[in-house]
């Protein structure tokens, strides 16, 4: 692994898998990085944990993520399709220890 560059595998809604490289020394949330990587995410609220359209399921590497804030947990609890592996990508800032993480996009497209 190069310094401050990690690999994250993204499973799209159709099941297709791609690994993207993410710099960890930029101040962008995972939601912003996914959008910049041309993934289809509405991000209606712009990162305020209000719309949950950036909902992802963390398939691998869940334990290496920082704990969710109360606001994020409140939002996740309200979602019909969230479970223990669910996070909001807009609330996640990745670090070097998140290398190898695997996520699946689940946010609504409407």
């Amino acid at each position, binding site marked *: 692994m190069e310094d401050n560059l990690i690999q994250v595998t993204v499973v799209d809604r159709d099941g297709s898998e791609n690994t993207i490289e993410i710099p960890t020394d930029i101040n962008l949330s995972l939601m912003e990085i996914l959008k910049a990587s041309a993934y289809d995410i509405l991000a209606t*609220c712009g990162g*305020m944990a209000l*719309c949950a359209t950036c909902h992802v399921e963390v398939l691998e590497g869940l334990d290496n993520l920082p704990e969710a804030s109360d606001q994020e*947990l*409140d*939002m996740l609890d309200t979602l*019909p399709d969230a479970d223990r592996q669910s996070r909001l990508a807009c609330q996640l800032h990745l670090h070097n220890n998140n290398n190898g993480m695997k996520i699946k996009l689940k946010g*609504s497209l409407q």
Partner: protein
Amino acid sequence: MINTDICIIGAGPVGLFAVFEAGLLKMRCHLIDVLPQVGGQLSEIYPHKPIYDIPGYPSITAQELIDNQLEQIKPFAPTFTLGERVEQIEKQDDGSFIIATSDETKVHAQVIVIAGGLGCFEPRKPEIQNLHLFEGKGVDYMVKDPAKYADKRIVIAGGGDSALDWTYHLADIAQQVTLIHRSDSFRGAPDSAEKVFKLAQQGKINLLLSHNLSNIHGNGTLTSVETINKDKETIAVEADYFIPLYGLTPKLGPIAGWGLNIDKNAIEVNTFDYSTNVERIYAIGDINTYPGKLKLILCGYHEAALMCQSAFKFVYPDQKLTFKYTTVNGINTF
């Protein structure tokens, strides 16, 4: 009927600033907002959060900004319809519009400006086939009048605060309350969860954790809700009412049906004047989209200023617009 020059849908910071810019050009504004107060998300969601990127204010709280903006537009005496959602617009023969709200307030305006921010917050619905068939016939997305559920069999679904709180409150009122949650715990609301666990232990409610909603049944009106547990067993719960409480999600709402070009829940505009594809309808602030769009309050202010320069021709078709500075002319009140 309310008569105005510009009808602004959305009374957030950008809608309010549009009143100022319109006022400088002697155009009157009426604002409609689905929320019961002005200010949009700033007042509703984060009134005490500081904002750092408003020119001239190193830091200002969201509510202070709204209060200042209201002060700033006072000379132009805008009028408001609050707590009502715009449902319909109807184009008149002369090009003007009649706008109708959910409470049947009617506004006649020459120009419509959509400054709706994220849109309206609507209940998030679970993906169950046929759910829509039972809306209003046993399926409710919010609890308006708890007395309605007296001595009824209620199924609530969800794991957030409102699902837990209503489970707790309706346990005393309803004949039977069942709470269905997809997970085996409630992560966000430990206090409310504890109360609900206690009720379940006492046998006062039926708690189905690690259950997924799968189907609903009825003939005309709802009779049962079906769930699947993690062992893939199906359980049918008899119910008079099913209340899925999955929070609110911002949606465009009726605006989506007005023939405007829409991309990912945002209205496409021409950056020349922030006009939409429908003449006399503009969209400014977070609700619009164009190449390079930034969802910033200050960008919305800019959009409001340019929009007014363009809208002028519909309000005063016989007058020539001359650009004036407030430092030269002051503010000409109505």
